[in-house]
């Protein structure tokens, strides 16, 4: 697991402390009963702080799973590498 994934998992674990580590990787806003609008805002704030990114409000609405966040961060990394 990459360092980025580990840091993302830590963010998710903070918001969904009731979920086991293996479940965090597959969590979605439909699978987790506690994933509400507050969770989305908190996750977005955590990820922005942890990865030093600015997530646009429209994008936040699409980040509805661990995988979606992971893909988003991969893209940010790749955009950053491309712009160097």
């Amino acid at each position: 697991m990459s360092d980025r994934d580990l840091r993302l998992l830590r963010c998710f674990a903070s918001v969904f402390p009731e979920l086991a580590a293996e479940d965090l990787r597959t969590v979605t806003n439909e699978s987790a009963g506690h994933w509400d609008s507050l969770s989305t805002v908190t996750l977005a704030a955590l990820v922005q702080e942890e990865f030093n990114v600015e997530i646009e409000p429209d994008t936040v609405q699409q980040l509805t799973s661990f995988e979606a966040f992971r893909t988003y961060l991969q893209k940010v990394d790749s955009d950053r590498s491309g712009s160097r």
Partner: protein
Amino acid sequence: MKLIEALEVTRQAASAPSGKAVFLACGFTPLHLSTFLSAELLLRNPIRRPDVRSGLFGDLVGTLERFEPRGVDALVVMIEWSDIDPRLAGRSLGGWRVPQMHGIITSAHDSIARLRRAISKASAHVPTVVCTPSLPLPPMFTAPQTEASLSEAELRLAVAAFAEQLVREPGLRVVNSQWLDDASPLAGRYDVKSDLFSGFPFTLHHASVLGKTLASLVDPPARKKGLITDLDDTLWSGILGDDGIDGISWDLEHKTQMHGLYQQVLASLATSGVLIGVASKNDPATVKSAFQQRKLLVTENDIFPFEVHWSPKSDSVARILQAWNVASDSVVFIDDSPLEVAEVHAAFPDMECIVFPTGDYRGIWDLLLHLRQLFGKSVVTEEDALRAGSIRQSQSWRELEKASGDRADTFLKSAEARITFRCSKSAADQRAFELLNKTNQFNLNGKRFSESEWKRLFDDPKVFLLTASYEDKFGPLGKVAVIIGRIVERQVHVNSWVMSCRAFSRRIEFQCLQYLFDIFKAEEIVFDYEMTPRNTPVREFFATLLSGQPVSGSRLTLHDFSTRVPQLFHLVEEEVHV
């Protein structure tokens, strides 16, 4: 603190028993501020999980007007410009036209008046912390950003006046805007995107600073009680033994003003009740002359005791602690010599020992700020100004008492003692609250009160608060005894009773009971006694009055008291009757 750290702190305490119930009143979505506040409260009290609740979005004034203090231990009010008028923030499109400014200011005054009424009402029942607007005002004024406009000045004046009124309210703490400016620069506070899309207006950094600041006012750290200072190159610049009395300095002329500022802070601390002692390796006669001949900003009267000799500093510190009767962890030691600081710290590991940064202007300035934080006190009472004098007086008393041998009655009679009793039903007596929460030795049962318990105590009409202030020919000791009790027909139930150790040996405790029997025409007094590891003086006192050792619910009849009370010589005065 980062948000993820705050969430982890709160997660780790998820199974801890619930602790302080804190109501966070704000007009915005509390979101991360609530998380940071919870985490910071937990760091202060890791055993109890705080229960942070909040009110309705967008209606701070209404939330406060509807606030029900029952079950709430602390109220935190976070005011922003949008609560004063929605047009003063980014979420409203109510208009910033020039003709509208007058209406905005009028409406701001109305909101502030409502806020003040609601906060005053709530703070009468529950400890309250208030933060006035912390965000920058929006770009609504016609003057360039660099220039203050009249409307902006009027708004800021209204908020400043509001803060000044709040600071005057007992039991209410207001966040110091200068502290906030230092910890969280204005330009980095507002998160416009977060405000518009989630209703949370703060950057995470600002929310973190606010959480920490608010928690420190909800649950203030224990204040240090005493400061022990060195003299040479610390209280003044120069070595007294080498440079002579005229060779030491603390002024602009000698470029030694920083020592003058240090003296000025110590003098200010002394008048706010902080004990100041001196531990110096010097010739005592020369030090005495220096204090008498040179006009130091901190005087001999501000300092007690002086430990001036050539013994190790740790010995001096031990003697000072004994004279003050305080624990080493509530004292700060300051000396310019790292070696002396290390020696004292080795002897007293829990004492904060600081090397005085002689010659380092910024370092000394920061030290002065640090001392303000360590010894900070919201309210200075009359007794605070008396503290050093009363400790010095107690020492004189002990010496004379010892010299009088078995002629105690003669000695007590000659003391010309006067006790002033004040009986009330008010939680406004800050000194009484302090004494109850810090006295260990003469303490009936060791019970401590939270601010909210204290405020609610007097909701019961049968509860009374009796305080005793003492003065004799040696000087005043101030308020030295506090009793909380209830009257049930001809019986007085004493629930709490403390007396300062400085007031021992004066038979004040007997006079307190005499007074209770007299004013309540009581036939019996019942005591909620509990043995604690440190309340031996109470146990010994009761042994002189009761037939056996005290127990919970011990009773003392008027008859037994009258036959066992020693002769009392105090002149008794009273201020208020229940």
